[in-house]
């Protein structure tokens, strides 16, 4: 029996080409599913109706909580929650778990547990089982003080994602973006799941280029509030907005260094558009580019050692890479005549950018050494890629004559989901 299961598991792994990598976590070795593999297929998962307490007979939270957990798992793009009508068993009624009932419907994982409502709020104990191995992978207890089902479901889904992939922080992130209204615009934020759309600025003027600090506590942006495109930094805790540069010409918000100390800015006060590193504490500038062409849109590598940016020094906008001190400038893109908006993956291995192909702008990925250039979107225009902090997703703008929408997709271009109307997304770090 045990041998059979092992054999079945091996066949399954081969058939689905799911690569498994070893990773050390805590005391023991933990096996995570490699959801980044190009041949990855969604994990079939069954979320059973949660058992309610016998003392609360009007137990409608059970199915609702299961539905919400399924919805959040589906949103990750890495799970395929199986429909409840296909289930052969109901742990809420049966009291025991027969794994064969779940493997028979194709589930690889099973989520089941109990919920209860008391003075503390809405509580739940949830267990995640590997159906193929017949093992419990995870057991955790939560209490949602607000008593609301959705945030509880979100926490459960985040734990399941973390338990299986090693990283579930994406549920605690936001996306900042620009909403245009006539000749003015403001910056908004929206949660990863599309909830809690909030206006962040009140500049009553053209306001652009939101960028998060590495700790997620500050946001820089450029606004025409006082006529000129000036640079501002908003403290998200106190709400205070400070003008940090109002030099003549462009003061364009670029990219915060991983250590949070420096902000890359495009400025033109010395005659043409150059990239500068601004020390946030002192305001001191270090000029990094020295070229009569346009140099714009800088993005740090995650180790803070290199910077990718856009320059038209070759005659058309292309992506370049340089060292953090401005030396060793090298052109990265050679295909196409209009490549802009580089975004360096938090994992360091890819740079996303938008390029023009057959008259349409689409998102591409390229290695920082210039190899493996690959288009990942098609159809309507896809622009302004911005990475999730775990490097697994990209936010982008989909533009059509009907308007601009903020979308989220897996880093391989699949599982597109729209979260808001707007443009120029910037994905936040994990906000504690």
């Amino acid at each position, binding site marked *: 029996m045990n041998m059979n299961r092992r054999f079945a598991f091996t066949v399954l792994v081969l058939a689905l080409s799911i690569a498994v990598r070893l990773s050390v976590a805590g005391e023991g070795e933990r096996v995570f599913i490699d959801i980044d593999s190009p041949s990855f297929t969604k994990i079939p998962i069954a979320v059973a109706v949660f058992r309610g307490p016998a003392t609360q007979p009007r137990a409608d939270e059970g199915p609702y909580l299961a539905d919400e957990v399924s919805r959040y798992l589906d949103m990750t793009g890495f799970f395929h929650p199986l429909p409840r009508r296909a289930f052969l068993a109901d742990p809420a009624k049966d009291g025991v778990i027969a794994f064969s009932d779940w493997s028979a419907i194709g589930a690889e994982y099973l989520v089941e547990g109990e919920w209860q409502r008391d003075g503390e709020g809405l509580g739940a104990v949830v267990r995640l089982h590997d159906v193929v191995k017949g093992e419990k992978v995870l057991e955790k207890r939560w209490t949602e003080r607000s008593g609301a089902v959705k945030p509880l479901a979100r926490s459960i889904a985040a734990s399941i994602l973390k338990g299986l992939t090693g990283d579930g922080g994406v549920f605690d992130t936001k996306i900042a973006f620009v909403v245009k209204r006539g000749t003015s615009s403001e910056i908004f934020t929206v949660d990863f799941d599309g909830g809690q759309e909030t206006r962040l600025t009140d500049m009553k003027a053209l306001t652009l280029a939101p960028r998060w600090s590495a700790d997620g506590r500050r946001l820089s942006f450029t606004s025409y509030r006082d006529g000129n*495109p000036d640079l501002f930094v908003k403290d998200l805790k106190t709400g205070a907005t400070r003008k940090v540069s109002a030099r003549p*010409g*462009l003061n364009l918000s670029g990219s915060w260094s991983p250590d949070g100390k420096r902000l890359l800015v*495009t400025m033109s006060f010395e005659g043409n558009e150059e990239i500068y590193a601004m020390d946030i504490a002192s305001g001191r500038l270090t000029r990094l580019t020295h070229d009569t062409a346009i140099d*714009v*849109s800088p993005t740090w590598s995650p180790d803070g050692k290199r910077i990718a940016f*856009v320059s038209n020094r070759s005659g*058309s*906008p292309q992506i370049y890479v340089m060292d953090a001190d401005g030396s060793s400038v090298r052109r990265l893109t050679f295909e196409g005549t209009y490549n802009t908006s580089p975004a360096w993956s938090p994992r360091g291995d890819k740079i996303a950018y938008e390029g023009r192909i057959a008259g349409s702008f689409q998102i591409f990925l390229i290695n920082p050494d210039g190899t493996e250039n690959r288009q990942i979107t098609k159809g309507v225009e896809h622009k302004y890629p911005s990475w999730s902090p775990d490097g697994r997703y990209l936010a982008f703008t989909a533009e059509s004559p009907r308007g601009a929408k903020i979308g989220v997709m897996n880093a391989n271009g699949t599982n597109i989901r729209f979260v808001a109307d707007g443009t*120029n997304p910037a994905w936040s770090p994990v906000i504690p």
Partner: protein
Amino acid sequence: MKKRSVVFFCVLLGIMFMALLVTGGCAKKQVQAPTAEVTETASEDAQAQAALQTAQKAAAESMTEGQAKPAAEAAARPVEAAGEAKAAAAEKAAEKADEKAAEKAEFRDINFDFDKATLRADARAILKEHAAWLKRNTAARLLIEGHCDERGTSEYNLALGERRAAAAMKYLVELGVAKDRIKTVSYGKERPLDPGHNEEAWAKNRRCHFVLSD
């Protein structure tokens, strides 16, 4: 707030109407008329009114002459008829105004090729007119706005728009306009003149726009 915007809208309408009369109906041309020329424009307005009245009178006469059908149609469309008469009058007024055109602050936009900030021959010709006017009207100051079409990214286009404004400023300075009278600002692709998504709209949107102030 609402009142202010209504007043602003009325003033804007007034300016647009005057611009229509002076330029012979070309809405693309923007006029920043200094105060001295307002009276002149007003007199042209009077001319237009007179022409309108003549046209109306003629329409009334045609009715008495028994040409009932076209007259009835004209009566049924009084607004259109008035509009046509006004346009005709404006054309005449514009012809007369042509002789004095050199003195008008008629700061036409200049246009650019895609992803370029180099001045085309047509742009240089227009800038020469602007430079000549600025040299005659030394009190005026100029703001050059650089704009781009919607293609490409916000950021690159902000830089490109700035290049366009800078190129226009450089040429005006070469033509003898004092640099300290000119300021530039780039709006990138954020403020298109034509909201369309085609080459016709893009060609209009790749521009420098000129705003005069005292």
